[in-house]
């Protein structure tokens, strides 16, 4: 098996075993969305209007929750040292870790989003819009968040710093994700442009994320 496939497989196994991040992220997402109607009140019209935004905020916070362990776990058990020393370029190793994180925590968010959308009184098109935008936008959350995760591990005890670092980076993704999802709910005439920008943000993260994270890890390990 190639080195990268082995790394992806290991991270997926760890995420799915007891105490791993996959289920935690999805449950946290569920928690946020369930809490929202209690805070807003049982106003179905209002919930339908702000539903896509609630789902996006929930997905963003849930992905942030699990990003914290992306490099911290490998740093604590010493794996990161061996990964940095290995023949696999660190950029590719970071990309593989991001892919595993997205598969383990991003995809479950996309899959449970339709169920949660029902709880927020979203109809078919709106539900489809949220699922599509989450599918296109969660890679950006993971890839840009990875930069923050790498910076946070190189500053000792940086765990609490991670949300502060990552939230500003996530703003563009959130803006275009919610705009596209709302457009889909309103009939979809202006869905294309924000959705394209959302895809572009994910591609931007794909290019920048691994290099920035690897550079941060190389500088900061000691």
């Amino acid at each position, binding site marked *: 098996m190639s*080195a990268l496939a082995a790394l992806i497989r290991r991270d997926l196994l760890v995420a799915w075993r007891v105490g791993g991040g996959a289920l935690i992220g999805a449950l946290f997402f569920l928690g946020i969305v369930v809490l929202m109607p209690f805070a807003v009140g049982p106003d179905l019209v209002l919930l339908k209007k702000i539903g896509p935004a609630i789902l996006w905020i929930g997905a963003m916070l849930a992905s942030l929750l699990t990003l914290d362990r992306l490099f911290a776990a490998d740093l604590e058990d010493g794996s990161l040292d061996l990964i940095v020393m290995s023949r696999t370029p660190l950029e590719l190793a970071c990309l593989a870790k991001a892919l595993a994180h997205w598969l383990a925590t991003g995809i479950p968010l996309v899959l449970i989003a339709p169920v949660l959308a029902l709880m927020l009184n979203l109809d078919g098109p709106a539900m489809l819009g949220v699922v599509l935008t989450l599918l296109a936008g969660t890679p950006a959350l993971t890839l840009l968040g990875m930069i923050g995760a790498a910076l946070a591990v190189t500053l000792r005890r940086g765990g609490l710093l991670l949300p502060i670092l990552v939230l500003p980076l996530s703003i563009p993704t959130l803006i275009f994700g919610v705009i596209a999802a709302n457009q889909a709910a309103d009939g979809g005439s202006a869905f294309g442009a924000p959705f394209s920008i959302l895809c572009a943000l994910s591609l931007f993260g794909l290019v920048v994320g691994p290099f920035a994270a690897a550079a941060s890890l190389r500088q900061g390990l000691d």
Partner: protein
Amino acid sequence: MRLSGSDLTCVRGGREVFASLDFAVTQGEALCVTGRNGAGKSSLLRIIAGLLAATAGTIRLDGGDAERTLPEQCHFLGYREALKPALSVRENLRFWQDFLGGGTGESCAGSLSAVGLERLSELPASYLSAGQRRRLALARLIAVTRPIWLLDEPTAALDADGQALLTGLMRRHLQAGGLIVAATHDPLDIPARELRLEP
């Protein structure tokens, strides 16, 4: 093959750990780095492994694989064993074998039985004792072939059997033309040069 360092200086957190350090170790030889706590033993190993930048000085490897960097030719066994508690003993070793690759080491099962863990291969690593975790880390040394071994306190947590096992592994590695740099408090039962770090 010859690994040498010249005029190495390491400053950490504004404190000079060691300065103007020279060492050399050749194929089939072991270098035993000794010194008090905080004398810079681990820092020296991490500098050789490329995990820490030396403040001054250079590390050279002559006669190694020209297509590989020095860290790529090293095994690094630190005080953390690089094990995932959620994975089984075999899965942990298998991962490092697949990820580090590039060498023709022992098979996964062969390495585990060499360190006496063959009966625990399906046990999650979280249930291992400190000594058993060490043994699993030692299995990595033989499952993947690397010419240079950097061992940081390799005897820590090992029982008498485990220490004998480690000695056997190190002797075999040296006879096969390998090279070892070990930081240790306990004397290792192999012929070794000593490099004493004075604070």
